């Protein structure tokens, strides 16, 4: 009898643990901090600055969500993850969301049981080579030694690309971006391949960036975006719409400069009013208060501001908007309507 009671108690405890894991929003509120998975350090996307404060394009998404949920953009615990540890960290509940230039793929969305909430950077895989190598196209890389981060989609794209073009290569698997940079600069590999944005970011950190070029071939589609665990749709909605609020804000012309003025009272544009909570009650629909989006945008500006500040053309990384411009300006950044 006692054994049965013991087992029963264990079962209940197990179920309770399972049930509590489902309500991520409550967990985050109770903890008072958002656990956000980022890279171990990729300048422009997520890296600590000289004072140890994390900043970057992906970090801004974490801060926006923290601002929306906890009313404090700094209430974020940044958890550095590698290409190998990121999914385990998310699946096990160690982090509440992952914003770590992670490619949205079918199997990650379905088989690994994650939900990608959107795409914050449309990317593609490219090759970085020294100018002195005299190569102008990736198809001339027959027999080359290629440095590649292990545990990423780029590894599979690389195999596909070389197989499709019937040329050979020698892969040198590496664990982190820093290691890849070291091997590449030492000449232990002829070319370094990863997402083109990552290459631009890596090259910006070189002593003489102009001695290196990114080859014109983009060999894959890499839609990078934040993701959450599958199964907690309420939490997924919060992260998704917080991100889209940033995108919509750029489209509507809400910036960190004018947000105070626009949110002071209801204006002429009803969608701006709904986003900023001066009209309707969108916040209640996702379990937050009405000023959630206002706080998210105020945290580090709208999507365009975040882009320009961290990875835009005026930064050392120098990425053009390209595909990541608003749909009204020739890109494919497109937020669904807020209504």
């Amino acid at each position: 009898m006692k054994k049965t009671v013991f087992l029963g108690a264990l079962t209940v405890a197990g179920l309770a643990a399972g049930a509590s894991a489902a309500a991520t929003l409550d967990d985050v509120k109770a903890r008072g901090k958002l656990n956000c998975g980022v890279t171990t350090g990729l300048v422009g996307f997520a890296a600590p600055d000289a004072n140890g404060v994390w900043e970057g394009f992906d970090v801004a998404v974490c801060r926006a969500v923290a601002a929306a949920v906890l009313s404090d953009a700094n209430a974020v615990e940044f958890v550095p993850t590698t290409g190998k540890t990121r999914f385990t960290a998310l699946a096990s509940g160690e982090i509440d969301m992952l914003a770590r230039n992670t490619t949205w793929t079918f199997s990650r969305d379905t088989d690994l049981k994650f939900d990608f909430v959107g795409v914050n950077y449309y990317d593609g895989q490219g090759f970085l080579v020294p100018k002195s190598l005299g190569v102008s196209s990736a198809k001339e890389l027959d027999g080359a030694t290629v440095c590649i981060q292990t545990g990423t989609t780029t590894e599979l794209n690389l195999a596909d690309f070389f197989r499709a073009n019937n040329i050979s290569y020698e892969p040198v698997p590496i664990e982190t971006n820093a290691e890849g940079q070291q091997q590449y600069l030492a000449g232990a590999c002829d070319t370094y391949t990863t997402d083109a944005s990552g290459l631009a970011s890596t090259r910006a950190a070189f002593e003489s960036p102009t001695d290196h070029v990114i080859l014109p071939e983009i060999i894959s589609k890499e839609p990078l975006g934040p993701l959450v665990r599958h199964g907690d749709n309420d939490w997924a909605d919060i992260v998704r719409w917080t991100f889209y609020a940033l995108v919509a804000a750029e489209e509507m012309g809400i910036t960190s400069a004018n947000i105070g003025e626009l949110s002071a009272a209801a204006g002429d544009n009803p969608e701006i009013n709904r986003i900023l909570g001066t009209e309707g009650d969108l916040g209640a629909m996702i379990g937050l208060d009405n000023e959630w989006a206002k706080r998210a945008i105020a945290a580090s500006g709208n999507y365009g501001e975040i882009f320009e500040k961290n990875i835009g053309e005026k930064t050392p990384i120098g990425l053009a908007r390209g595909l990541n411009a608003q749909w009204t300006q020739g890109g494919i950044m497109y937020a669904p309507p807020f209504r």
Partner: protein
Amino acid sequence: MTTMTDPPKASFQLSMLIYDTRYRSYTFQFIALMLLLLLLGYLGANLVSNLAAQGQNISFGFLSDPAGYDINQRPIEYDSQSSHMRASVVGVINTLIVAVLGCATATLFGVTAGILRLSPNWLVRKLMAVYVEAFRNVPVLIWILIIATIMTASMPSPNQFRGDNADASMLLDAFAFTNRGVYVPAPVWGAGSLVVVLTFLASIAGVFYYRRYATKLLYDTGRLLPMGWPSLVILFVPTILIFFVLGQPITLDYPALKGFNFDGGLHIRGSLIALWFALAIYTGAFIAENVRAGIQAVSKGQTEAAASLGLRPKRIMNLVILPQALRVIIPPLISQYLNLTKNSSLAIAVGYMDVTGTLGGITLNQTGRAIECVLMLMLFYLTISLAISAVMNVYNNTIKLKER
């Protein structure tokens, strides 16, 4: 009083399980076993139910899917369309390669350093002490990284071999030391090479036969035949003769610059060298201590007795000291071999594709089947460790003290 010495056998009562010292220990062991099984059962059930709550299950079906990634060091045929299972096997073989190379080299380093630590020469003795203390007390991961960094930073890249006024040149036009590894000539097995190999194997058997014959002759008649040069003659002369008689069937394929890299020859990658060398030199330091301890365990009287019989120092070491020292050396040596094999899982630090890199790294990552992959990894390392123990224990049994 007589009834006290012969208790009734039939009356077994349940309370005796606790109060009778004959049964009590079994009772408690049984209870402990049950509790342990219960705990394991709970952990297993907990795992399965939590996986089910996340909508996942345990399945090994992914092993037959195409892996989709490439591996640089392929001892068996493999391409990106091969299955995950085959990728794991490539990893297993790569692990075994570095383990075997590492164990052999570590033994060489260890035995040499261990004997030299007891050298009468002060400088040699102290140098070996520095080697043992320096390598034993720094984590092996650091040594792997140091050697890998030295390899990539100080060796020339293949590009520097190019042109008439190249910065670097090949050794004897046959060996190229680059920061991507070492290129050495590889043998090409032509027709008739099998005969040469068989001759060589027969020669090895011949050497053993000659040595046994010489020993027997020594014991029977007291005549001492020379050992050194006849062994060498038996080993090499027939093979070399056959090699030229058959018209040199085995040729060498020399590495040459082609495209971005050296082509041809055998490519020993920098990652393998770093891992192999670091593991060997690290474990060698431990083995050196085992060897020193083993030799010092043989009492000094043995040396003195052997010397008074007129044996020279080299023979004292080989015939008297080492056979007795081996009994002390072998058991800890087994665990050093196991350590080396398990430490080889640090391979990913330098991008060597061992089984932790393929099955436990890329496959795990691309399929997301963490539990299955880790279970298989554990099973592999357990199997290989038990196999090494089994083989070494057989050897240990042949040399250990025979008590008659």
